[in-house]
């Protein structure tokens, strides 16, 4: 009990000292200090809010599927003089080219085009945590030879912790559909589902020797389909060369509110 009293006394004494000190300081300085404190908290708050409301769309897919072309179609509405294999991600924040004519204030979108070369895939992990949506670009023209590689990549993507936990929506974008021999998106979806089913069998064979994915896909005992994923997976058509990307723009606007 006595100790408590002692503490109290000390506290009140300290309070007095602080009060005296405050009175000594000119009020102008006090106001300035308070203003700075408020300002910093506001800034921090603003940053925090900004981070939670992401406007990032990540373009990914195999090398040569046409991600960079789509990136520039979204930004400038033209493919310029063509593209070569990317060595570094393209990223930019802009108002979509198709919406530049619209009236009113439109929120710009942050779009990242991550190179598809397998050596550069670790780069993807840097962008996934802040993604509001993922676009997986598939070459619909040259699909069958690349089917397995594309499915493996997609499988890895769909079992990544950062994707599953935040339920980031994913769009499978079938590119190059302007060509006559291109496969339909239904066909591509089915093929990829089939491939992932096989992958599930081989990858779930877990042993100490394996690098295990954090999450498994689908429901055991049932054939895999994208509806079993915790995040929504949709498919769409596009043609990067002719600039037919309206479905993609819809997807982006559905997840990044203007």
């Amino acid at each position: 009990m006595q100790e408590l009293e002692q503490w109290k006394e000390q506290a009140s004494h300290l309070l007095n000292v602080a009060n005296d000190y405050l009175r000594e300081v000119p009020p102008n300085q006090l106001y300035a200090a308070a203003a700075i404190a408020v300002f910093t908290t506001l800034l921090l708050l603003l940053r925090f809010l900004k981070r939670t409301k992401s406007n990032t769309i990540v373009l990914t897919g195999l090398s040569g599927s046409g991600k960079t072309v789509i990136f520039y179609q979204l930004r400038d509405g033209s493919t310029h003089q063509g593209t070569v294999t990317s060595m570094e991600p393209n990223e930019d924040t802009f108002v979509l080219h198709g919406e530049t004519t619209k009236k009113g204030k439109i929120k710009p979108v942050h779009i990242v085009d991550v190179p598809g070369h397998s050596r550069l895939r670790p780069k993807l992990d840097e962008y996934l945590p802040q993604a509001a949506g993922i676009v997986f670009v598939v070459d619909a023209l040259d699909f069958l030879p690349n089917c397995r590689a594309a499915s493996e990549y997609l499988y890895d993507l769909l079992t990544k912790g950062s994707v599953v936990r935040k339920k980031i929506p994913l769009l499978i974008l079938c590119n190059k559909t302007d060509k006559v021999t291109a496969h339909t998106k239904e066909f591509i979806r089915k093929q990829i589902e089939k491939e992932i089913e096989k992958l599930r069998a081989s990858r779930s064979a877990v042993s100490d020797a394996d690098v295990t994915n954090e999450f498994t896909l689908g429901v055991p005992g049932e054939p895999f389909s994208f509806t079993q994923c915790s995040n929504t997976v949709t498919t769409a058509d596009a043609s990067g060369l002719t600039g037919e990307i309206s479905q993609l723009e819809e997807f982006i606007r559905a997840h990044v509110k203007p």
Partner: protein
Amino acid sequence: MLEQLLIFTRGGLILWSCNEIGNALKGSPIDTLIRSCLLEERSGASSYNYDAPGAAYSLKWTFHNDLGLVFVAVYQRILHLLYVDDLLAAVKREFSQVYDPTRTVYRDFDEIFKQLKIEAEARAEDLKKSNPVIVGGNRKQQVTWKGDGSDGKKNGSAGGGLKNDGDGKNGKKNSENDRSAIVNNGNGYNLRSNGVVGNVSVNGKENDSVNNGAFDVNRLQKKVRNKGGNGKKTDAVVTKAEPKKVVKKNRVWDEKPVETKLDFTDHVDIDGDADKDRKVDYLAKEQGESMMDKDEIFSSDSEDEEDDDDDNAGKKSKPDAKKKGWFSSMFQSIAGKANLEKSDLEPALKALKDRLMTKNVAEEIAEKLCESVAASLEGKKLASFTRISSTVQAAMEDALVRILTPRRSIDILRDVHAAKEQRKPYVVVFVGVNGVGKSTNLAKVAYWLQQHNVNVMMAACDTFRSGAVEQLRTHARRLQIPIFEKGYEKDPAVVAKEAIQEASRNGSDVVLVDTAGRMQDNEPLMRALSKLIYLNNPDLVLFVGEALVGNDAVDQLSKFNQKLADLSTSPTPRLIDGILLTKFDTIDDKVGAALSMVYISGAPVMFVGCGQSYTDLKKLNVKSIVKTLLK
């Protein structure tokens, strides 16, 4: 003729391509260049050859790292275009002036390019014309050239430092240029411009400083010597050489002279007194204020050693200089350095190279990696509050992750299932030199596959070493796996063939083929291996290598690949698809062999053997390897 010249961003957008040349390239040399050369950390090389049906191209490239631009020139390989390097450098210079990140169309660059190309071609023509002069008249000049052999060599090495002269062609060109420069010296005015051209290709990016004023061999030699002798010091001046110098000053009268001081006197001796002033001037011009210090050392060392006053003055000025160095480096670290140059990077790269080599990375590989990292950093802006060493380290880490990340899928089970659907066995051939653990690790792989409900069969195709079949039989018995054997003295290729037939008959999913260990130089055995692989067309050729190996890793893998390619009778030879790294538990932190092997072959490490029992088989953890390598 030049086929194409492209300018694109590292992001992949083509900014400008040569319109008037216009003829379409066969195949896609640019994409191939990026995928198989620039992204494989081979950008330190000087040129890349691309073969397409009906065309053979050579590609040369240069980076502008600060702006993130890549310049690539494509030309027919049969034409040895001498002006390409020169042209690329000129295009880079001009284009970086008009470049604007928001702009994507640069049609107005057409005119500039046309001009540059004409100039470059003209210079190349001149150079060609000047070459016969040597043959025609000046024997004396030839002699001079021979006499200066050592310098020439030095020069060559300096040039090599700047530009990798991996292939002989470049080296030859260097020496050609040297010769022309010397001839030029003798012949006087007419050819001066050629000499400058030659110098451009020899010294690469340093040329600008040399071009001013008259050009003579003395100057060139001195320049080279400066490079060779003072190179380290120059670099150190930027960072922390000043304290060292104070020490040196105090020890002038010590018993054992400091080595570097001897070096200085040497210089003075060779250059002579008359040249000294010019040399100092020259250095000062090149390296800025810090050379002031050096000037003082010269004077105190050579002339007035007993002069106390002078000494005192020197001592007084030393701390001053030191302070300045500290302050400027501080300032630099805050403001960020303008542009990184080769000389800035060199000390950090050298330290990094040494560190890699202590981790058992083959020297050749470490060298190439450092060159590639240098190529990717040169000209870049250093961010504020970062040091060069940390920037270099980060770039190296990126590069290492990129190299070690497998290019192809290493999911063998997936491949096995795919083969199962086609109702044919999945064949894996284990190859390697003697005693690396092929049979042991074959058993481990068999055990791992067995754990995943795959029917495995072993094929004993080591019909060479005594006891090999029995060894494999013991493993098979312990694992309860069927084994196919035909005893010794049989052709292994035939045994393997029969084993595969047997496997498809009894429904085995995987056939693991054990082969005899062979040294990479043993031609008959390599021929037999090549035959075995050609005849059976396995799904996976697994090279088994031990993690203990150092520089020999490069030799083993490249020779194996080379022999498999050369000795194969088929037009599309099979090469090594994957690597099995054994004895990984014995090496502690010397994990460099993994990097060497992956870099040299481009094949991924599929398994890592890390112990004596059947369960000791792992996958390579790229992150931990990179961490260990850079520790």
